């Protein structure tokens, strides 16, 4: 299997400034807390990706992002398996994006990622002991 193309948040930010589409696969409650403030943003929760991935354009470059870069990497491979050739994973997720001071709406409260188990929500206490 071909290795996924990955970029850091700094490179991703530069590309979003040029208008690339950023697909955030975090769950709605995570997005409600803090989200990417970029020109072209699409929200498709990881837990709905199997049903909704067709909404992601196949004919242009897209960056996939999540909380810490794990779910987005799985999503990137999933899309590659479905014929997407211009899909890029953003490493380290919105946590690193926030640390870098890139544009956001809201503020992150939790440092742990959402669940890798697909059903998705991280623990509300930020510790997320039950998963990931």
């Amino acid at each position, binding site marked *: *299997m071909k*290795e996924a193309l990955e970029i850091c948040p700094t490179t991703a930010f530069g590309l979003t400034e040029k208008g690339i589409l950023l697909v955030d696969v975090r769950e709605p409650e995570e997005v409600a807390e803090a989200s990417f403030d970029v020109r072209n943003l699409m929200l498709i929760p990881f837990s709905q*990706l199997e049903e909704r991935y067709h909404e992601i354009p196949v004919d242009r470059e897209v960056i996939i992002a999540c909380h810490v870069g794990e779910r987005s990497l*799985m999503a990137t*491979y999933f899309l*590659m398996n479905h014929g997407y050739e211009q899909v890029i994973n953003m490493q380290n997720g919105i946590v690193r994006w926030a640390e870098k001071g890139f544009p956001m709406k809201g503020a992150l409260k939790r440092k742990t990622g959402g669940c890798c*188990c697909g*059903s998705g929500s991280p623990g509300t206490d930020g510790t997320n002991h039950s998963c990931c």
Partner: protein
Amino acid sequence: MKQVKILGTGCAKCNQLADAVKAVISSENIDASVEKIEDIQKIMAYNVLSTPALVVDGEVRCKGRVPSSTELKDLLTR
């Protein structure tokens, strides 16, 4: 010998499934090897978004949950 693989990135549920599978294999004397796959690229070779997942002889038989011992016995021996 059955080739059993547990797909998961190392969360609690993934470890629960691995322990449960090993317990059933032992109690039922199933001739099987068990391998944990934690690398995302290798996991996604099975195109599984929901982990943990159970793969038996190359076939994904369960994903996104930890089955009961009874169901695991069926999944491992069918």
